[in-house]
């Protein structure tokens, strides 16, 4: 029986269990003429849970463990002359061939007699395992159903138990978020440490040359993995982006919150926020086909040679992308400044712009700085725009009209197409990722602390 059918059967059994629990509890209530502790639905649910949950847990454990067990058993049975002298990779290939033979897909050439024997052994074990699984699940499900149904009595606190299960499930799903962070940190740390066993951390963090070579070019330690050119490129592109986004975004926020009529606000705000919803790949394409040629044309007018793909191109596109980010965050923060501050300034005879520049903005400054930091962290972590428009040239230079490369671009370049995490060439992606993660995390934490302090100040 396939897993799908198995789960479907279990679900049907649970539906039946619910029904049985429901009718049983009603019968109990009417026959003894007492009030049940919980409503009948809860008894039904509880019986269904008793029926389904243990079997489901066994199913999950089983599908996780059984294939490994079978693999070990089959490997143990393989004739020694077939296995001897095989490396890890070849062993995997062999097992893949055997399992392909076992489930009837077959392999090209039909397989050797030893392989066929191992395959039939494997097929036997799989059948056995499948039958055992079904048997265990059936026993558990039926036993759970019968026992739980028998326990139904007016004093059984069904609702409390159901609610405990629900609360537990809710808590478990909020653990996923934690697990994700743990997974990110652990996986990146693990792979980054493996990278540092090839390359000394000092050479990575303070190296000024990025030239990883190809992983096929030879053994380890050949390429040069200096982070600084990439970090410099990242900072340059992000700085350009912020130089574009901060003036436009901040002035937009000020105008929207202090000057604009409700009519303009209701129209312009959503339109500008459309910019936030556009996928970054689209900005990359826009940079490549519109901004780059435009800059290049401007360069021709002034008589300098500007490349289509450069730090400037990517930075401007990225700046456009984070305008709505800056403007909506700053807008929130500016509107939180208490009205009394404004009224005070206006009452002393300040003009509106003087009020804004000398009272509102200084009061809102911490929050706005927090917003800028969040925007910066977003710019640093942005990938697709720079992949398309920055030109991928990992060299230290100060000219924004030259091509650069960033941390994110390099992660993509080093990891696409190569899924064999053994060479420093692909492992470096994780060291870069870890660096990126730490930088953005640091910026976010500072920003959140700053914004929170600011909020408390005016609450």
């Amino acid at each position, binding site marked *: 029986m396939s897993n799908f059918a198995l789960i479907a059967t279990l679900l049907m059994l649970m539906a039946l269990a619910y029904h049985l629990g429901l009718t049983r509890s009603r019968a109990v209530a009417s026959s003894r003429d007492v009030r049940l502790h919980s409503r009948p639905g809860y008894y039904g649910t509880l019986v269904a849970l008793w029926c389904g949950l243990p079997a489901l847990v066994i199913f999950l454990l089983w599908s996780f463990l059984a294939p490994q067990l079978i693999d070990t058993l089959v490997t143990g049975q393989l004739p020694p002359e077939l296995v001897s002298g095989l490396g890890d990779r070849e062993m995997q290939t062999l097992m893949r061939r055997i399992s392909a033979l076992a489930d009837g897909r077959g392999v090209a050439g039909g397989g050797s007699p030893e392989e066929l024997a191992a395959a039939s052994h494997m097929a036997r074990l799989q059948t056995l395992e499948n039958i055992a699984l079904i048997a265990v699940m059936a026993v558990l499900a039926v036993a759970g159903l019968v026992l739980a149904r028998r326990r139904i009595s007016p004093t059984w606190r069904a609702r409390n138990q159901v609610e405990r299960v629900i609360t537990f499930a809710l*808590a478990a799903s909020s653990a996923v978020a934690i697990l994700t962070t743990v997974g990110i940190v652990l996986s990146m740390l693990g792979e980054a440490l493996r990278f540092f066993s090839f390359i000394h951390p000092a050479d990575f963090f303070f190296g000024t040359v990025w030239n990883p070579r190809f992983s096929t070019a030879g053994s380890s330690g050949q390429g040069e993995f200096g982070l600084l050119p990439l970090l410099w490129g990242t900072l340059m592109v992000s700085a350009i982006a912020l130089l574009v986004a901060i003036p436009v975004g901040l002035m937009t926020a000020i105008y929207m919150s202090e000057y604009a009529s409700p009519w303009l606000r209701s129209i312009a705000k959503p*339109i500008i926020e459309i910019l936030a919803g556009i996928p970054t790949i689209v900005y990359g394409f*826009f940079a490549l086909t519109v901004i780059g040629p435009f800059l290049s044309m401007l360069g021709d007018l002034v008589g300098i040679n500007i490349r289509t793909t450069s730090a400037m191109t990517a930075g401007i596109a990225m700046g456009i992308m984070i305008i709505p980010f800056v403007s909506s965050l700053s807008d929130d923060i500016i509107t939180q400044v208490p009205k009394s501050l404004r009224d005070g300034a206006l009452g002393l005879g300040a003009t509106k712009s003087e009020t804004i*520049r000398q009272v509102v903005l200084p009061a809102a400054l911490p929050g706005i700085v927090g917003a800028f930091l969040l925007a910066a962290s977003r710019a640093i972590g942005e990938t697709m725009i720079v992949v398309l428009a920055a030109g991928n040239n990992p060299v230290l230079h100060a000219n924004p009209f030259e091509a650069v490369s960033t941390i994110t671009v390099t992660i993509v370049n080093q*990891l696409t197409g190569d899924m064999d995490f053994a060479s420093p060439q692909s492992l470096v992606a994780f060291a870069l990722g870890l660096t990126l*993660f730490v930088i953005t995390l640091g910026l976010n934490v500072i920003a959140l602390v700053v914004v929170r302090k600011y909020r408390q100040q005016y609450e």
Partner: protein
Amino acid sequence: MSLTIEQRRQHRLETIEKSLSKRHRKENTFRRLGLVAVLTGLTLVAILFASILSKGVPAFWQATLYTEVTFDPDVIDIAPKPERQEGETQYAYDERMTQWLTQAGLVNWQSLIDASLEQALGEEVEPRQLRDLRALVASGERYALRDRFTEDPSLLGETVSLKMLASADVDVWVKGNIDRDLPDARLQLSPQSRAWVDVLQEQDVLRQSFSTSLFMNTDSRSSLASAGLAGAFMGSLFMMMVVISLSVPLGVSSAIYLEEFAPKNRLTDLIEININNLAAVPSIVFGLLGASIFIGYLRLPLSAPLVGGLVLTLMTLPTIIIATRASLRSIPPSIRQAALGIGASRVQTVFHHVLPLALPGILTGSILGVAQALGETAPLLLIGMNAFVANVPGSPMDQSTALPVQIYLWQGNELRNFFEARTSAAIIVLLGLMLSLNALAIWLRKKFETRW
């Protein structure tokens, strides 16, 4: 010299008077600067959309040849299509069918297309010019012809009117996406082919027709004119199914826990900070997580929508949690107090009273999260979804690309002047999907919004 009080006052007033006009000028400048910023934002939106629409919309129409093709029995010289005989096993029948299909594949279908073009042109084409002639038709059309015949072998000897895609080079030429004054060596079509294109256009054999291939075909490397989005679309659809079925239940339940049940202690504080930070982690880091854990450790298949969906699920989870919490928080405490006051348990209060009221907000947040996941590219590149896939994936475990990744792949194609338009068309499709999801979210919010 000493001034009287009156004079001093007079003097001060004059200074204020003088400075006032300056201050008002400053006020106006500041105000105008703000307006300029707003207009800049609006203009940028307009330029972005205008450039993509102007490039992409023409790509929805494609140069197409309307010709008569004769299924010439002299060329298609093969046995009749096998039919299942009495008592024949499925296996034996399949075997014969495969043989027949192989035979049909060996037929020179291209020569049928050549003949039909010759007829349309009204001239004999010399063998050495065949290359120029074949440059006019998308190379995938001969397979389309073969498939048409194997579906319906009764076509043998018949003449049918067919729509064939012109090649990408012809499309570029006809649409004027190439400078016609370039020297011959730099034009994609030979002078002879260009002359024929003109003839065919004059006779109305070659005209623009709505490009169904963009939606029905998968990506193609050999026949560029027929490269389409079907595979990428299905890949994205499978991924979104995974994302919706995992991230919405998980996100909503963890938000409910954190907002309604969790005790206020260090641990929940930690979870809260953690979720806020997770929302700001760059998407590419999630791709690294997927590459290392799902592919490297769990050995899930490369390029599978399932893995892409899992990565995007982890990425959208914080968005959905934050939106759901905000929505739950906006339900006034009086609702909870009333339910608790008449004896409902906390679980009952939440599930019977708070959750239904918060549902519109939760739905809006979830849709926005899913729309964001739909447009995400970077993490997918790291789990191999940028591989070239020529089939429509049939399940979440098959190899596949996704819409944004297809855009990435197409923008890098060497045949720039054809694929720039094609890419823009793909962007229009993607933006259309995302904007309609966003519009749905806004509509839901407007329709069900309650002010307490």
